[in-house]
């Protein structure tokens, strides 16, 4: 039944072509793997299938609908094929074809691309081996735990995350490291939810995690964290290699097998992410993380192996304190290693840690005291909750199930209640924050820039954006051939005539290389021509052309002009995803005035100054030269920003210059406008996620006016509306059609006030 439901879901959600491709590929692979043919033929066939998927994934062969299927196929088939072949080699056979087929067609995998590696034999043998009622209780318990962990993750991520740029003392570093490590509960929640669903379908699968925050040693940590991954690595790599080479000596064999297993762990983890992100990254962070884990776990494994049997003669108190210290030590080590692994680069991580090293002895002492306090708390918890392997599992304990049910009932009541409140009510804001997928302030800038890049540069995404892709975005990677790289400050420009579909939205690029209708090279005397400069909001990302505010403004103005005059308004949309102030300055030095505009409207978002220095840091890291902008070149030199530095360090160095850069940028745009007899207008446009923008508007507006702009504010344009009403949809926070209409209506109203009219 699971397979049938999968097939139906696949086709209805992904479409006939993409869904059909997934099913056809899976069925072909399944058929060959189950034939009575030589084992080597099966391997060759599997390799060919995956080679084909790699060709598609890297876009060496362009087939958009098939390309969409690749992340799903990679996630569904890669590890399961290995597991299936492993058991096939051991002559394991199972009679039920539907059951075996369902192994490759796990329904939750369509939603969660990052999925636990379920062992084939464990899967088929676990099917209803436990009485149904116990199974369903277990499934419900797991789903509850999974969902609660995901909600907890959202709360932690949204309200307690620490910006590494703000870390300068040891306690702040510990806070940053602790929260970063705790965010792992997102993956834990996803995996537990996945196994919960499968359990409800009748599969009595083992637990995925086991309180790994309370690991007492490295082997213990490896034992507790992601059982499925560990069991897979041990079964497929560790044991086969160990038993093959143990003649060289047990301990040598354990070292070789252990380090090799972790090497393959690293490779397979990168492969797992490759299917999702399109990038096969073997970064220094990844290598150091996995091999460090490998060294410590292997060493501890040898120590445990050599440790002889015998009773622990220590008192309960001493034992508890020892355990508490061990747990704290492992926790601190794991958390630091985790943040290292998740840093953008070794340089970024080192930059943060290095900043703290100069914070002084007092800061260090505070940090040590914090860790000591944590050790005391952990010891107390360990003393109170003694481990007992034979204790009933939580799902078998009715009070816990009742508590779970009550928690969910409370959450549902909370959600129902907040729906009755105004959108700006604090409780309504909290409810929206934890029930919708979104980024926090720290990540928003990076993900926004990365997301913009998705339109113009199909390929992988950075680590920060991975969380969205974990949930199987249907149309991502469908855009192609829309842009070309420029190698300069503009980074990428649209290709004239390009037509693409990105995230379900059509983008047609005209002969001028902008997303707009065709216009004559020069306007006639009765026509007012304006240029809109901005980023993806101006572009109309996520909405069709006719739904963008630029289109609506143009239409409204022309409709209102018709009765009284023969004049018209043409608005040329130079909006481009990822374009910040610097790119607009570059546009104003050339392209923006090719069509002889009478006015240039520059759209600015809150956070402009920070976006500008992030943009500069990004360009420096790409090796882009600022020769054509001597002022900027001098700022970069004064700030001693170098390409070899991490982006956080570059941004930190540029911080004190950010408003100077913004003011320079505004002056440049105004200078270009005046040189071409065009009226410069500065427009403040909040995004759908901005709030309390009044002060920033005042500061930036004052700067814009000083530089010679006329100023227009669209602040509060989205006030009173819930995010779901004005955004394209999770995780795309761009304004949807209704949001664009709000912008258009407000713009026209402000235009009248500004009296920049025909």
């Amino acid at each position: 039944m699971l397979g049938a439901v999968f097939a139906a879901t696949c086709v209805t959600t992904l479409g006939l072509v993409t869904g059909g491709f997934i099913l056809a590929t899976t069925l072909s692979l399944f058929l060959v793997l189950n034939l009575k043919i030589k084992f080597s033929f099966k391997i060759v066939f599997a390799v060919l299938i995956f080679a084909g998927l790699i060709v598609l994934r890297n876009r060496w062969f362009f087939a958009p609908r098939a390309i969409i299927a690749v992340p799903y196929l990679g996630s569904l088939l890669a590890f399961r094929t290995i597991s299936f072949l492993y058991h096939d080699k051991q002559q394991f056979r199972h009679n039920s074809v539907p059951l075996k087929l369902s192994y490759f067609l796990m329904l939750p995998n369509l939603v969660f691309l990052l999925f636990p590696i379920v062992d084939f034999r464990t899967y088929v043998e676990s099917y209803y081996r436990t009485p149904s009622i116990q199974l369903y209780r277990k499934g419900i318990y797991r789903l509850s735990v999974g969902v609660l962990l995901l909600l907890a993750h959202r709360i932690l991520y949204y309200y307690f995350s620490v910006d590494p740029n703000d870390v300068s003392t040891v306690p702040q570093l510990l806070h940053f490291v602790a929260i970063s490590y705790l965010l792992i509960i997102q993956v834990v929640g996803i995996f537990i939810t996945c196994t919960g669903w499968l359990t409800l379908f009748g599969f009595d699968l083992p637990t995925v995690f086991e309180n790994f925050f309370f690991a007492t040693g490295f082997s213990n940590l490896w034992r507790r964290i992601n059982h499925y991954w560990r069991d897979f690595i041990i079964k497929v790599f560790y044991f086969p290699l160990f038993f093959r080479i143990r003649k060289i000596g047990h301990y040598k064999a354990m070292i070789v097998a252990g380090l090799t297993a972790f090497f393959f762990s690293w490779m397979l983890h990168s492969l797992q992410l490759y299917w999702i992100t399109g990038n096969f990254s073997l970064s220094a962070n990844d290598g150091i993380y996995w091999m460090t884990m490998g060294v410590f776990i292997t060493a501890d494994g040898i120590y445990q192996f050599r440790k002889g049997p015998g009773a622990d003669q220590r008192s309960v108190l001493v034992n508890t304190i020892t355990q508490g210290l061990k747990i704290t030590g492992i926790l601190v080590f794991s958390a630091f290693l985790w943040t290292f692994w998740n840093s953008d680069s070794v340089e970024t991580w080192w930059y943060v840690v290095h900043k703290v090293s100069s914070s002084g002895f007092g800061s260090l002492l505070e940090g040590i005291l914090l860790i000591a306090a944590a050790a005391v708390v952990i010891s107390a918890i360990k003393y109170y909750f003694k481990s007992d392997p034979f204790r009933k599992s939580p799902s078998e304990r009715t009070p816990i199930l009742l508590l779970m049910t009550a928690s969910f009932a409370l959450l549902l009541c909370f959600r129902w209640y907040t729906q009755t409140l105004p959108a700006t009510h604090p409780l309504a804001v909290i409810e929206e924050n934890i029930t919708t997928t979104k980024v926090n302030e720290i990540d928003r800038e990076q993900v926004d820039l990365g997301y913009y890049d998705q339109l113009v540069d199909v390929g992988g995404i950075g680590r920060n954006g991975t969380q969205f892709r974990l949930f199987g975005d249907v149309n991502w990677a469908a855009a192609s051939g829309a842009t070309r790289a420029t190698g300069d400050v503009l980074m990428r420009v649209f290709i004239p005539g390009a037509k693409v579909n990105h995230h379900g939205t059509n983008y047609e690029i005209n002969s001028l290389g902008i997303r707009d209708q065709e216009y004559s090279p020069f306007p006639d005397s009765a026509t007012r021509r304006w240029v809109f400069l901005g980023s993806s909001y101006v572009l109309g990302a996520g909405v069709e052309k006719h739904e963008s505010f630029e289109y609506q403004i143009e239409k409204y103005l022309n409709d209102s002009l018709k009765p009284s005059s023969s004049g018209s308004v043409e608005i040329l949309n130079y909006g481009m995803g990822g374009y910040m102030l610097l790119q607009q300055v570059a546009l104003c030095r050339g392209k923006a005035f090719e069509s002889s505009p009478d006015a240039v409207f520059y759209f600015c978002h809150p956070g402009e100054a920070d976006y500008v220095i992030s943009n500069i840091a990004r360009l420096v890291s790409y090796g882009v030269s600022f020769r054509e902008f001597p002022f900027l070149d001098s700022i970069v030199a004064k700030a001693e920003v170098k390409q070899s530095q991490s982006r956080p360090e570059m941004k930190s160095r540029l911080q004190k210059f950010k408003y100077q850069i913004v003011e320079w940028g505004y002056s440049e745009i105004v200078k270009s406008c005046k040189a071409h007899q065009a009226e410069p207008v500065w427009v403040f446009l909040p995004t759908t996620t901005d709030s309390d923008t009044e002060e920033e508007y005042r500061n930036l507006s004052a700067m814009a006016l000083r530089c010679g702009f006329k100023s227009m504010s669209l602040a509060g344009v989205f006030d009173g509306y819930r995010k779901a009403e004005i955004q394209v949809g999770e995780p795309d926070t761009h304004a949807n059609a209704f949001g664009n209409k709000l912008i258009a209506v407000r713009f026209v109203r402000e235009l009248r006030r500004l009296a920049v009219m025909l």
Partner: protein
Amino acid sequence: MATKLEITQQVRKFIIDNIFGGSDNADLKDDTSLIATRVMDSIVALKLVTHLETTFGIEFEAHDVSQENLDSINRISEFVLSKMK
């Protein structure tokens, strides 16, 4: 050749000595799942394999170290017996 009872007693002693610090646990039955209860992990499995190979003169292969063969004292005993035959 050792009997199943002897093998069972050896395995039980091994588990009690190496995992429970020498104190018998009333919950540890001959059919208690050692893997589901996380009593048996890869290091314990390797130690057990080494002990069984030394004690009973058998040889394990990599795929023998699996849940099917090592999940309970009963299963271990049956597997060792099959290896000895």
